[in-house]
């Protein structure tokens, strides 16, 4: 497995971030429910500005639910998620995006009643600094020329690209990505990885939920391991190789 030694640039950023006073996002004791069932039992983690942090864990560990809790599409939540000083749990769901948070959902969330172009242009750009449509096409050439196709008629992988692409337009500088490589061909995974590194270099902060460890390791700074609705471990990317055994145990390999 290839390793990606941190570049000088990103090393400096990590150091800068570490120096910064408060983390960009600080999640404390987050609990969440689906109806009656209690799914998250006190999640704690933080993300500093410019960092890429992954959440990993077995199926059903609560990774998706954690992201959903942050943007407010889960029914009942408790705890605190302090983002830029505000508690996300107390922000009206439709105002979360306006804080510059972008979300790429697990099941992609492409709207079938909208065309590809409409899907792409859908999320309002709440902040400056978003990518232009052509730039996005450059990143994902598959989407080019499909403007008037209904969104869900795209292939699985193309829908994934569309889901990522549309967030890049909004100028969000904090992105929650739920398994972006699922169903994506290896070449394109590499491209997405490259794109994410570019975004990171531009100062974007990312939470990444991933099953593909190899991919995660190629861009992340730190990894949080979730199990049964709790954060059970934190491993920095540098220490990943050294801790592979421990990690495999968590993941049940």
């Amino acid at each position, binding site marked *: 497995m290839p390793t990606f030694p941190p570049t000088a640039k990103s090393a400096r950023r990590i150091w800068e971030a570490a120096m910064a006073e408060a983390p960009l996002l600080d999640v404390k004791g987050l609990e969440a429910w689906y109806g009656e069932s209690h799914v998250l039992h006190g999640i704690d983690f933080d993300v500093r500005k410019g960092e890429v942090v992954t959440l990993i864990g077995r199926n059903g560990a609560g990774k998706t639910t954690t992201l959903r809790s942050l943007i*407010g599409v889960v029914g009942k939540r408790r705890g605190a998620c302090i983002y830029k000083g505000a508690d996300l749990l107390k922000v009206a769901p439709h105002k979360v995006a306006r804080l510059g948070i972008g979300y790429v959902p697990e099941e992609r969330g492409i709207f079938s009643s909208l065309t590809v172009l409409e899907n792409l242009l859908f999320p309002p750009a709440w902040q400056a600094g978003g990518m232009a449509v052509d730039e996005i096409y450059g990143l994902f050439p598959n989407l080019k020329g499909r403007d008037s196709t209904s969104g869900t008629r795209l292939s699985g992988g193309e829908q994934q690209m569309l889901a990522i692409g549309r967030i890049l337009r909004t100028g969000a500088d904090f992105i929650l990505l739920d398994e972006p490589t699922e169903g994506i061909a290896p070449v394109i995974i590499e491209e997405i990885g490259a794109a994410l590194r570019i975004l990171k270099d531009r100062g974007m902060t990312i939470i990444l939920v991933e099953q593909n460890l190899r991919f995660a390791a190629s861009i992340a700074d730190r990894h949080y391991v979730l199990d049964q609705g709790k954060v059970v471990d934190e491993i920095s990317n540098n220490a990943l190789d050294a801790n592979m055994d421990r990690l495999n145990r968590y993941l049940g390999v």
Partner: protein
Amino acid sequence: MTDIFGVPIAVLLGQLLLGLINGSFYALLSLGLAIIFGMLNVINFAHGAFYMLGGFAAWLLLSALGLGYWETLIAAPLMVGALGAVVERLFLKRLYRVDHLYSLLLTFGIALMLEGLLRHVYGAAGKPYPIPPSLTGGINLGFMFLPMYRAWVIVASLAVCIATWLAIERTKLGAYLRAATENPGLVQAFGINVPFMLTATYAFCVGLAGFAGALAAPLYQVSPGMGSSVIIVVFAVVVIGGMGSIGGAIVTALALGIIEGLTKTFYPAASSIAVFVVMVLVILIRPSGLFSREA
């Protein structure tokens, strides 16, 4: 004079025009219904009741407050729309996530309540509402006598329909609404205030029905039952045009008005079935309606 199946051409032309006018009425009603279905995923059985309320509001404003026709035409839809907003906030809002059977039943119940209430308070007999003096009389078109008021109806309703169509199809609003029916949580996550948008949409569409009611008051008996007799036909229009297709609803409404008018001329006994026959045929040939987005 030339005849077509025994009907003089002049009479036929007149019938076509009248059909078109009726169609523009249907358009006003089915437009709102189509938007509510397409965007909110609600089968709004109360649409007829709101239409009726529009008529009643017009009558009340006239008889109790002495408001003139033009003021009424603006105030009545606003009142109905406001009531619609309340209904959406209090009830419908909680039903978006469950099977749309429930919103159908809810609106069915609301229709019964409104109809029952008005009948209880104002009686089953209708209320008189005269044609405004500025619009009485008619124009002789040569082939027919066209009452002024009917001419005004077609102008007013088409203008409103087209304005609505532009507002929804030519702006991002339409995309927001359509997406919100599919996945409201996600749309919200993109920073759009979905609940507000839905309330406003419902209120607006119901307001359109109220507008139609106020427009109809001088033509038809303003009575508690006036809504339930048109609602089924308007539903058929929406189904034929393709649920959720706004332009489709308008065009279909006009076409059906004409078809109905022609049946009234050639075989009046079948005129109320005509719409349903067309509907069954269309659904068999093009299941999702003539103008629906889905193939």
